């Protein structure tokens, strides 16, 4: 407790830095995943290929991926861009499956009905498919958010500052309170992000509360939980 009191400023700064590392991958990852998920869901052949490739990308452990990044991007080894891009890759790898599952979960009859009413393909996507797959997308996004917030700490190992700094510094100076503060701060950010996402879901998807969506969400969530594990 005393450590925290005298280092409140440092912790706050690190939390802000940590969030600035996490937010771009979550948002960019989500935006990239929708079209890829759509393609994966639209054509049977591409689905297999895309999911296998992303599955393999997700399998690459984070420390090696952070180390490979400067070679691929040509960035300096200590650039935070290395971490942001690597986290985005993980986010896409996780999110595309949710996007594909979500778009696939939309009742085919509803789509046929929409076409029969005269929606064009483009309109149908924006006004029917995307909103209806919202609950599954949201569930996927929550998983992405939690694992990104946790993974960003590993960046500190390769010298990119995040809340992971508290772990490394805590080990060197043998201060358990510092390490614990780091863990709690990470969990705090994860919880806040999760609550924000749930709130966003309520605003954007008011129709989905209870009945239908709850089932879709729990199914998608338990499936994602089983099929993917956050590699560090």
């Amino acid at each position, binding site marked *: 407790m005393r450590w925290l009191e005298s280092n409140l400023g440092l912790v706050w700064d690190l939390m802000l830095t940590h969030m600035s590392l996490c937010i771009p991958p979550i948002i960019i990852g989500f935006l990239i995943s929708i079209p890829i998920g759509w393609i994966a869901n639209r054509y049977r052949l591409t689905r297999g290929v895309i999911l296998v490739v992303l599955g393999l990308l997700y*399998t690459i452990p984070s420390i090696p991926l952070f180390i490979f990044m400067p070679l691929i991007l040509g960035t300096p080894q200590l650039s935070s861009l290395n971490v942001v891009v690597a986290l985005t890759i993980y986010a896409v790898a996780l999110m595309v499956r949710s996007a594909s599952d979500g778009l696939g979960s939309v009742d085919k009859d509803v789509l046929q009905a929409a076409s029969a009413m005269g929606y064009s393909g483009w309109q149908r996507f924006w006004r029917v498919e995307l909103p209806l797959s919202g609950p599954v997308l949201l569930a996927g996004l929550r998983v992405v958010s*939690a*694992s990104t917030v946790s993974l960003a700490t590993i960046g500190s190992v390769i010298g990119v500052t995040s809340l992971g700094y508290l772990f490394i510094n805590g*080990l060197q100076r043998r201060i358990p309170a510092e390490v614990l503060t780091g*863990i709690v701060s990470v*969990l705090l950010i994860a919880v806040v992000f999760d609550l924000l996402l749930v709130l966003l879901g309520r605003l954007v998807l008011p129709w989905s509360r209870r009945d239908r969506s709850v089932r879709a969400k729990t199914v998608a969530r338990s499936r994602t*939980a089983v099929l993917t594990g956050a590699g560090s």
Partner: protein
Amino acid sequence: MNLIEQGFAWILDPENISGPSGWVARLLEQLAYTFGAVAIAAVIAVPLGYLVGHTGKGRDIAVSLSGGFRALPSLGLLILLALGLGIGFRAPLVTFVILAIPPILAGAYAGFEAVDRRTIDAARAIGMTEWQVVTRVEVPLGLPLLIGGLRSSVLQVVATATLAGYVAGGALGAFIFEAFALRDYPQALGASILVTALALVLEGIFALLQKLVVPRGVVVKEQREVRSRSSRTRAVMGTPIREGK
């Protein structure tokens, strides 16, 4: 590109391959962590998950547990435990067991939950005991999801086991952290390539295994489902087209 060549050169250098601090020994350490942690975690999580899945009790706790652990930073946990248990292999092993539990738990209970309630009801109705319902219906039908859970826990641990080197726990990460200290990029790269290759190989083995254990009757194509889909029509609501006037 030159750097990648140097990375491979590091791997192929005989001096780095064998011996107690060669990469073969380190790779075996990584595997020992992985399978040791997953085995211990399975002993704990499988019965627990089956209990949750069979009775439906404690499901909410299990769900939030396996969800919440996703946000737990493994590096922080590892270091906290290392400060308590000392450096060496114990803190990493405990960390990896903790990391391995949630996916296995989720796989075990989700596997039971995925079994059609009506199949279980029928099994009871024809006179299976609770134990037989578990062993003859729920376990075989839940196996694919359990293997899925084991798969993700193995992959998670094999990746995270790299961190063991950070608290002097050996494994392939030892090379990487040593390389950081010495600014020896080829060594970091070479070890990274090995870790990645190991993860990909394990992923491949498990993908194959998962295909093999799915009960045959579960994968065969459903005859009726395919047909009934397209022929069904649903009322379309919209603005009626006005004729005349």
